């Protein structure tokens, strides 16, 4: 799990019951996972780092709040942490609501260590790929920003399938100038051909 040394996976546990929190913490530690224990959602939000792979083990029945509402609030704030819902009641409606809101898994207390670890592993994988996408997007967004407006224009038209000649005609510039802009733009984006550009554009323009 610790494939990249720079990134430490963190399992956030939000449960108002201290015993449960500590027991789960012990269990996850025994699997070599790093975890942080929280009695409520505020404590979690203060500790959350969106650049670190992480997941959230959330109890639906908290003292002052409803776990499902916490989950909904997170997705509204675009906090894209994978969530695992824990409950003491096998309420099917509650499970559906949680899964609709994008929960990774739904664990019915008391659950086995295997079930917990499997869910956590899955959630961390999701988190990791989300962070990869995120860093890919941020890297390319920065590169794209370094392009001049004319270079961006030339690339966009090229992505749409226009030939250099056509681009020159539509922008009212010389064919040579188009070729210069294009070559510089591809170098700045660190790509070899224009065929790689649509993928970058798809990530940065959503």
């Amino acid at each position, binding site marked *: 799990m610790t494939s990249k040394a720079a990134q430490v996976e963190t399992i956030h546990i939000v449960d108002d019951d201290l015993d449960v929190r500590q*027991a789960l913490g012990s269990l996850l530690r025994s699997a070599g996972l790093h975890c942080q224990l929280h009695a409520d959602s505020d404590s979690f939000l203060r500790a959350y780092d969106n650049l670190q792979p992480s997941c959230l083990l959330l109890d639906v029945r908290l003292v002052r709040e409803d776990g499902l509402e916490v989950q909904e609030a997170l997705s509204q704030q675009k906090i894209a942490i994978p969530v695992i819902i824990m409950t003491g009641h096998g309420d099917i409606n509650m499970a559906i609501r949680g899964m609709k809101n994008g929960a990774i898994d739904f664990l019915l207390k008391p659950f086995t260590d295997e079930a917990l670890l499997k869910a956590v592993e899955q959630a961390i994988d999701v988190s990791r790929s989300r962070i990869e996408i995120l860093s890919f997007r941020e890297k390319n967004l920065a590169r794209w920003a370094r392009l001049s407006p004319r270079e961006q224009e030339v690339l966009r038209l090229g992505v749409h399938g226009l030939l250099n000649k056509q681009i020159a005609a539509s922008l009212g510039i010389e064919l040579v100038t188009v070729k210069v802009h294009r070559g510089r733009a591809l170098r700045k984006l660190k790509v070899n051909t224009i065929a790689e550009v649509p993928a970058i554009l798809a990530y940065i323009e959503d």
Partner: protein
Amino acid sequence: MVHSRRWLGISALTATIFVLNSVPSLHDALAVLYLLVILVVARSENASEVLGIGCVCAVLALISFFLKHLGEPLSGAYVRLGVSEFAIGVTTLLSHREHATRALLSEQSVWLALTHDTVIIRDSKDIIIDWNEGASKLYGWSRAEALGKTSASLLQTEFHDTTGPDLVAGAFWEGVIKRRKRDGTLMTLTSRWRGRVSTHGGDGGIIELSADLTSELRARADQAKSEQRYKAIFDGAAVAIFEFTVSGTTREIALSAYNTAAARLFHAEDGGSISPFTDMKIDGHASFRHAVLYAVERNIRDELQGSIASDSSTLEREFLITVSPGYAFSGGSTVLVTVVDISEQNRTRRRIEQMQADLSHASRISALGQMTALIAHEVNQPLMATLAFARSGRRWLRRETPDMREVEMCLDGIVETGERAARVIEQVRLMSRKTVTERERLGLRTIVNEALEMLASECRRNGVRVENTLPRGAVWIIAARTQIHQVLVNVILNAVQAMAAMPAGPRVLTLEGGTDEARAENFVLIKDTGPGFAEPAVRSSFQPFLSSRQDGVGLGLSVCQTIMEAHDGRIEGYNLDSGGGCIKLRWPKA
């Protein structure tokens, strides 16, 4: 005095005539003077006196004749005697007849004067010439005041619809007139008039008899008004009313009247026939006739419930029927029967009772549900933690290099959370024990009756007859009232529902009980005529969460058992030899 002096005069006159008539020198024709005597006597009141005097005169004339002419040959003297005797006889007879007529007239006038009717005689110019006592009383004018006045000015006669009759002599008129009394009040009179023949043959005015109608008319109007009012009430009433007559001898009952609402009740508004005797069914009576006679013979107002057989409405209707004996008349009496449709009230009442029953059931269930959820959560949390600690500990041990410090922490966690779960359970137990403590001395029959009252509508709805043979007063138990209620209601409800599930047959709930001296116990038996317990069910009935009914919670008898044990009692179920189930509740003797 006057009487005897008159007779003295008459005797002297008679004697003088006799002497003169007997003197031979005087003429025989003097005998005619006897006529004077007869005419004088004729004025007296006594008709027989006239006849007597006539005879005396005739005899005296005969004596005078014999004194003068005895022995003489037949001559003119005999003729004179005959003429005299004839004259005396005729005068006597005429006088006698005239006297009789006069006496009759005078009797009539006395009678007229005395009558309560008013008698007024007016001449042809409407001047009042006679006025009797009745007239004085009625009109307020005395005879002296009325005589000589015209009736028009004195009495201000108004005719009902004509200007008054113009009566010729002997003609007759009868009608209603209005007149004013002396004090001005107007009154209505019934009056009969006859045209008089005057003494000289022509129009002699009018003799009239009148009687006061005002009070009679008022009474009659009042009666009519009251009858109208009664009829309006009778016909307008929303309540169906029937009037029957009951014969005093044969006890035959006949329908004599009914109102519109009654016709509507039998769907006979447009004149169809009504047959209350065959169609009306009355609870507790063999027939409608029987119910009516029952009330009449005891002279009581009876309130009954019943139905109508010919009722075509889709919903079964129930009626409140009141039988009240009316008035008696020769040969029988009347009975009023009112019929009110009370089905809607009854339906509403039953609906409310059902809703209350459902509500109390629902609130019991929901309270139980909440309690269960609370306990489940409170126990589940530490249980969850215990298991997680245990699993974690196992993992730490299984690592290549077991981490004993972590294992120890896990074991501590297991102990702590286990203890926490135990504390929760202990608290629940304490809570339930607290409610058992308030106990009191309860009469067994009373508490059973209270439970039966709570279930009265349930029993009625399912047609269950309740027979309570528990002894009054004598048996006591020491227990928590509400908990014993809970047990009894549960057990009785089970019995009622078991019987309700049976398609047919009598549904009887029997409650027995008393003291079992040998075992020093008080007990109650709740017996039903239902299907009884299926053999395995006898045991499982008392297991929690097993219900034979769809909507049952399955806690009923299990809770009962808990409560009974908390009271050092027992609950047992078994089947009766006669079929049906029996639940026995036992408590130690108080």
